[in-house]
């Protein structure tokens, strides 16, 4: 299955501050501060290196994290996070 490829906003646009369960991210273009919790910081980290489809991203994250059933709730959860991150300007889809 194909779909858009997601990519994190450029490193020069973000200031990332890991806290504890949360990671604070300052988005320079909007001046907004976002408090992210798992798996959003991990998504940003993976997508900072390369643009991936949702399926490829899920496969990559599943190597290190328990994200649930890849064909079901895991994929749906990941899609929801991707949409939130895209709405915040922290990633874009092409």
């Amino acid at each position, binding site marked *: 299955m194909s779909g858009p490829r997601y990519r994190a906003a450029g490193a020069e646009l973000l*200031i990332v*501050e890991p*806290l*504890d*369960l*949360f990671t*604070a991210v*300052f988005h*320079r273009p909007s*001046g907004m*501060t976002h*408090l992210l919790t798992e798996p959003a910081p991990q998504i940003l980290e993976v997508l900072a290196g390369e643009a991936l489809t949702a399926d490829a991203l899920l496969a990559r994250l599943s190597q290190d994290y328990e994200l649930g059933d890849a064909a079901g709730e895991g994929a749906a959860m990941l899609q929801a996070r991707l949409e939130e991150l895209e709405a915040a300007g922290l990633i874009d889809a092409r």
Partner: protein
Amino acid sequence: MKHHVTLRVGPVGFRIGSDWRDPIDAVTALYRDYPRADFADYTVRLEAASPIRRWFRPSIHIAGDYRLPEAAPLPLAQGLLAAELGMNLQMALGHRRHLLLHAAVVARDDRAMLMSGISGAGKSTLSLLLARRGWRFLGDEFALIDPLTGLACPFPRAISLKNESLSVIPPDSHTGPLLTGTPKGDIRHVAPDAPAIAGMDRPARPTLLVFPRFGFPSASRVLPPAEAFVRLTQASTNYVAMGEAGFRVLTRLRSQVPAIALDYPDGAAGVAAVEALWDAL
């Protein structure tokens, strides 16, 4: 305006103008030991709410470089409070040179303790009591954090004590008049002591961050990083306006300074608790 005074408090110069003489006399008396400002960063104007209100049931509308259109006017007898509120308003709405935290600040040996909380948390009372015990008073309303150095710049305005806290004012204090029936009850302003005024150009390094709550059984807990960060953003009146500089100041403050939530039942217990926290650093 017909009457005015200039005033410098730490790094900020104010010009306070008024349609009436009384509020200016009250400010001048309370801040008698402060330097006059060479340059006014902010202007506060205490205006008659309408031309007739200059004479008939005189009523002060707080205006200035920055204003809140919906702010209720105050009676002329509360002119000093109007001037204080006007200065707070200019800072909260206009100041960009420092990150502002709603906090009282005291220091020992140029190391600062920031006590951040909402109105009623006991910031003013604790800072006055601590100043009487030898701490240097840097402010009871705003902590001014320099974005470049991370230091707390003194902003030692008059200390505002309300209602039950009025009893802690030492008898030898230099105070303003007792203002009764204000929107926040009875208020009296206390001029900071001589060391606070003499030291108002000497910044201090933030060393301990306390979030006090008055009127609760004694308890304290170390705040986890995310909670400390969120509380700091909530305590700042200009975090959004400061943009990236604000984010950098707060993340640095959060990472370098221990943050502790402190509940205390009364002033004496609060003073003992914060000094114990300080001594344990």
